[in-house]
């Protein structure tokens, strides 16, 4: 398909708006045609420019991801981002190019970091390495297996959900971010600050959604059906007799000493319980 003319594009844009807002069932055909006309050639040409993305199907894979991303975010990130219809064909075109641009950058970075998790976890001889943290509960045991066991155990702890969630999202950040190369104390500070910066404004149910979505990608973070139902039930319970716990913002749980110190405190509490469980032989 050649690139559309401006008139053709404006007609397709109008049709797209009609399709994606159709009350009897949204369709995404015009959106796909717009993406194919503009983004496919753009993505393929970017892939050719970067040696690591010249492998077979890179362009196809990235284009496919972009298409899915547009279907999932055309309403909340563009057409209705302010609550009313944002009828802006030119702005829309700029936006979809930006989505495509970011997808190519992510793909290039993901390719370069292939095996990132493994590299973080093992040394040159393939031996597991410790996460450099003073009170790291995984220090003396095989890391992947232990992580799996720890997550399973932490999810069942009877501590408050905000404390359990803190431990889990912090572990996800610790593994995702390249902070493990720093000295122990720096890691603690950086990662606690990241937890605060990333999650403060989110509600408890949003944080749980993120944990579930991350769990799909992380083999050692499993949430059983039973745990999932238990947590969903807790999120629906009223907090201080008012809103459901799921609607409460994470930062509302912070103590007076501030977000970073609170996170550090909660993580230590969970770590202590893990160490106890390890000593008792239940992990």
């Amino acid at each position: 398909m050649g690139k559309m003319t401006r008139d053709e594009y404006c007609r397709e844009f109008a049709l797209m708006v009609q399709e994606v807002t159709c009350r009897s069932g949204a369709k995404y055909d015009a959106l796909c045609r717009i993406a194919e006309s503009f983004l496919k050639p753009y993505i393929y040409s970017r892939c050719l420019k970067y040696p690591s993305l010249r492998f077979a199907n890179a362009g196809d894979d990235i284009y496919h991801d972009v298409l899915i991303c547009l279907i999932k975010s055309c309403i909340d990130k563009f057409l209705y981002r302010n609550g009313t219809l944002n009828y802006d064909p030119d702005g829309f075109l700029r936006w979809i190019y930006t989505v495509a641009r970011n997808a190519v950058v992510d793909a290039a970075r993901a390719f370069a970091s292939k095996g990132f998790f493994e590299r973080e976890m093992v040394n040159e001889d393939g031996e597991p390495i410790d996460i450099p943290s003073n009170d790291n509960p995984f220090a003396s045991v095989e890391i992947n297996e232990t992580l799996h066991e720890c997550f399973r155990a932490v999810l069942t702890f009877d501590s408050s959900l905000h404390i359990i969630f803190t431990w889990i999202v912090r572990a996800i950040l610790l593994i995702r971010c390249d902070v493990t190369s720093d000295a122990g104390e720096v890691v603690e500070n950086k990662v606690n600050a990241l937890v605060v910066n990333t999650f403060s404004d989110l509600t408890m149910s949003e944080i749980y959604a993120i944990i579930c979505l991350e769990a799909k990608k992380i083999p050692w973070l499993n949430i059983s059906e039973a745990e999932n139902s238990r947590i969903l039930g807790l999120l629906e319970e009223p907090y201080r007799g008012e809103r459901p716990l799921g609607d409460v913002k994470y930062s509302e749980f912070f103590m007076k000493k501030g977000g970073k110190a609170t996170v550090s405190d909660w993580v230590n509490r969970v770590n202590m319980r893990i160490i106890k469980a390890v000593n008792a032989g239940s992990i």
Partner: protein
Amino acid sequence: MEHLSLDKIIRFISFDEINDENLRLASEVNLHMIECSRCRNKVLSIQNTLEHLLSYSGVKGVDVSNIIIDEDIRSELDNFYGKKD
């Protein structure tokens, strides 16, 4: 109006295949988000945080400047707008 369940939001955000079932889900969630700012904000903040997390991972300092120059997008758009119908 019944809000989107967390499970539905998670399925919507995580689907990675274009098929009839997922398109039906996308239609349902997207149409609800047009009417409901509460669910729209919820989906948006989860999507944004996931993107944020993604940006944390990967090898730092991977040079992508030779593939992506923001000027490129501008020149794509300039070409398009300069194009005669």
